[in-house]
């Protein structure tokens, strides 16, 4: 699911790279996609329908107030894109996207702290061809 979300966001979110890890060049805005976990919905004996727990870190290219605006705009773009994910042709049957947390948590590992909004999403998807990732 990480790969599906990355590929999808890469095509619809403009002005930021989308990656599964921190890019080498952190002077541009980026979105980091991390799969926190997954669980089977319904009959646990049938591996068909899953809820994927995905964390999306929307990083600005800088800290401070300007970075906050940039990170927030990126977060809004990502959120809007994911709202439209069900019904979009991707390599999975996405039925619902539900958000369970959205917060601003600057990354203190940067100096100065880099502005970041985090979006927590649960993506409900049916089985599909290919290897889940």
């Amino acid at each position: 699911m990480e790969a599906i979300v990355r590929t999808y966001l890469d095509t619809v979110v403009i002005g930021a790279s989308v990656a599964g890890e921190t890019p080498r060049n952190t002077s541009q805005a980026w979105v980091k996609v991390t799969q926190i976990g997954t669980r089977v919905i319904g009959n646990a004996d049938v591996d068909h329908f899953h809820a994927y727990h995905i964390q999306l870190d929307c990083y600005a290219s800088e800290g401070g107030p300007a970075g906050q605006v940039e990170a927030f705009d990126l977060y809004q773009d990502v959120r809007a894109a994911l709202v439209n994910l069900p019904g979009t042709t991707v390599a999975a049957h996405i039925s619902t996207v539900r958000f369970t947390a959205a917060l601003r948590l600057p990354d203190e590992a940067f100096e100065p702290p880099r502005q970041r909004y985090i979006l927590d999403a649960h993506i409900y998807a049916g089985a599909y061809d290919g290897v889940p990732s």
Partner: protein
Amino acid sequence: MAFLPNPTFLKQLEVEDETVGALEEAAEVVAAGANELRHSFYREPGAVLVRNESSRVAANVYVVNTDPGGHMDEWGSVNNEAYAPLRTAVSNAGLEFQESPKQS
């Protein structure tokens, strides 16, 4: 005689000792799971604890990570992955995480 439902029934039920006890029981499971999953970033790590701040008017049972690096453990940083011990423990306990559960 007309039946008049008690409008505060759910509120009363919520603060019953049995209800708060059930919440505490679930919170203990989450806290134990989170303590298994969490990482420490500092020399004096905290712990994941259950705090019961319920009163006669509200049932408030919290699972709290007192580790000073708990936010980095939960949400990640440029240097470490988001290990998400609290959110994962909620899910592992068979519960569903909601950011702001609606207050009745």
